């Protein structure tokens, strides 16, 4: 891959590459080119990686392109604009890779980074447990030192793509004698070994992207401990900040695209509805366009902050809240405008099914990656200095 010098030329290059390759790729898949189809998503992600579109911001010595954040942002934006779906190894590319490059040993980098770049190793994230959701630090999975190895026992839940993952990074308790945050360690666990059991969880959309993962006497070599025992919480918190500046870009592009489609739909259905209804639709649409405008300004602000090296603050929480709640309002309006028959009787064919799927998905968006309630606690405590709850 040859990287053009100026940002404009880079954007042009990325756009034309994606237009050429994605259109041809999607055509090959025909009816199966569907964002709900995980095989399709994996195959596109493989294609991107095979052409070198991975590790954009990673150092060259580990196979990355060392692009600055502005160029990474351009890629993520253009990728979403061309209509291509997100991959299924977003956790490997977005979280684990940067975490290893930052906290991993030299041998861990040499061993795992090339596998992610080639998309040969798909990663999942083993954090939440049945008893530890919002209060993550209370988690009870245990890893015990046995000779030169660790023995892992525990039960993780809401683990995205675990049934397709080759590896999982796991937060487990290694010390019960210290305060909860300090007794956790960060392990890399091979999912293809005895003692690992994955059970998909069927979601309200009907799909099963989340899983439960059971670890029963799973052996972990010492070389798969990242950092030192007890570093787990610190590493996990830092890991969550590596996508700062770019995480929301594809989601914001999608928001804009859905907004444009909704506008066209409202115009198309204008003649068939009451004047009062149409006025209300216009107003709700314009309010959502305002949300979209603010989200874009917030994304620019976050990118500037990340590029200037400012430490991550609670602004990720404010963007997540605005995006997830506005996205629910957007899809609620889209369903209403589409007409009540969609939910009652006919399903609306393929387009209707996609809309319903996106609509149902928005119910997860205010829950996953920190519920709205937890995000508001973060804003209140870190931005306003209000005391923690008892």
């Amino acid at each position, binding site marked *: 891959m040859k990287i053009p010098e100026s940002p404009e030329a880079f954007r042009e290059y990325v756009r034309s590459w994606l237009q050429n390759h994605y259109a041809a790729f999607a055509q090959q898949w025909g009816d199966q080119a569907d964002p709900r189809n995980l095989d399709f998503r994996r195959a596109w992600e493989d294609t991107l990686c095979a052409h070198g579109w991975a590790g954009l911001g990673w150092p060259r010595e580990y196979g990355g392109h060392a692009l600055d954040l502005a160029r990474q942002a351009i890629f993520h934006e253009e990728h979403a604009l061309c209509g291509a779906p997100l991959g299924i190894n977003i956790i490997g590319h977005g979280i684990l890779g940067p975490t290893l490059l930052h906290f991993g040993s030299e041998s861990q980098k040499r061993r795992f980074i090339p596998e992610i770049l080639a998309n040969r190793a798909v990663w999942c994230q083993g954090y939440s447990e049945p008893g530890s959701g919002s209060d993550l630090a209370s988690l009870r999975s245990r890893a015990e030192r046995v000779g030169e190895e660790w023995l892992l026992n525990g039960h993780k839940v809401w683990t995205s793509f675990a049934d397709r993952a080759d590896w999982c990074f796991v937060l487990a308790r290694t010390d019960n004698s210290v305060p909860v945050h300090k007794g956790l360690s960060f392990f890399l666990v091979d999912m293809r070994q005895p003692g690992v059991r994955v059970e998909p969880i069927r979601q309200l959309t009907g799909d099963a992207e989340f899983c439960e993962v059971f670890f029963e006497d799973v052996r972990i070599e010492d070389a798969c401990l990242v950092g030192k025992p007890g570093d787990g919480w610190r590493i996990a918190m830092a890991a969550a900040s590596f996508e700062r500046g770019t995480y929301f870009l594809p989601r914001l592009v999608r928001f804009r695209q859905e907004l444009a489609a909704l506008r066209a739909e409202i115009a198309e259905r204008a003649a068939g509805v009451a004047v009062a209804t149409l*006025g209300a639709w216009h107003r709700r649409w*314009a309010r959502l366009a305002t949300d979209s405008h*603010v989200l874009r300004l917030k994304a620019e602000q976050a990118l500037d902050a990340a590029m200037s090296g400012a430490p991550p603050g609670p602004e990720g929480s404010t963007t997540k809240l605005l995006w997830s709640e506005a996205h629910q309002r957007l899809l609620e309006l889209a369903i209403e405008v589409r007409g009540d028959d969609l939910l009652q009787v006919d399903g609306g064919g393929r387009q209707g099914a996609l809309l319903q799927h996106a609509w149902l998905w928005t119910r997860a968006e205010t829950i996953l990656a920190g519920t709205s309630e937890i995000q508001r606690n973060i804003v209140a405590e870190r931005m306003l200095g209000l005391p923690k709850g008892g």
Partner: protein
Amino acid sequence: MSADTDIELGLLTDSAQRFLAERRDMFIQGAGAQHGRSAALWRECVELGWLLTCVPAERDGAGMGTAAAAALLEVVGASLLPLPVADGVAAATLHAALHTDAFGETDVQQWLQGEQLTGIVQGTVVRHAFTDTALRLQWREAALHVEKVNVSHAGFGVDPLVPVGRPGSVRAAAQTPCEESLWQAYAARRRALLLAEALGAALGALELAVEYARERSQFGRAIGSYQAIKHPLANHRMALDDARLALHDACAAIDVAPADTGTEARLLMAELLVQEAVHATVEGAIQTHGALGFTWECPLHFHFKRVKQIGACLRQKHDQAVILERLWHLAA
């Protein structure tokens, strides 16, 4: 924004904050308004150079953008200063762009130089009616028309710190050629700065509410530790931050292309967000204070009333439904 302008802006807002903090008790206790003290305060504000914030350096101004003036107005709003600073900044910027002093007997000059404190006519209302005359600025047929009018029915609206009245008969008039885009810039800038003042007044209320939620204890804990209290406060903080972001974006657009429909849309979105945020914030701040928030002694009601008064001033023929419908059409 470059590092230099950041520093300049910091100096401007810090000095304004100090200046206003020292005088705040005076103008809050002066509810009922003594004209002499207000006129002296106006002169001091003008001498600090506030009105020249957006006037180009070659016209002896500070040469800063409208966003800088918005930051200043936020400080003014938070202090509850009851003077027409937003009107003054917008008018001084227009005045400098016109390259003329041809305002005859209308007192525009005296007002902008701090020699006289005059109210400004907005539709059917004179805000800051400290004296028996006011200024009316209008644009028609490629000219700026300035009138000095009598003020009738002087008194107070909901805000006990800002005297108001009705515009009456014309005492003096002047006109000067003025491009439409200059007038549009004036009108947009004035609107943006009034929004910034309301934002500041609401921010002041939020600070009081947060402080109270930290200190007031019930059931053995600070009430700010309860989610029923802390989540609304978090919402208000985020709404104010988003509104400011949109407002400063609109200010930048006003500086570059005041007559553009894109600028109009950006200002409308900012107006929508500011209006939503400031009303929710001052209402919530009173609720957070419980019965204390309902007393005259607690200064919250001044913030509440300032927000409600500016809100009403801007809403004339420009309510939420009108803004949203306009945004729908502008997006076509």
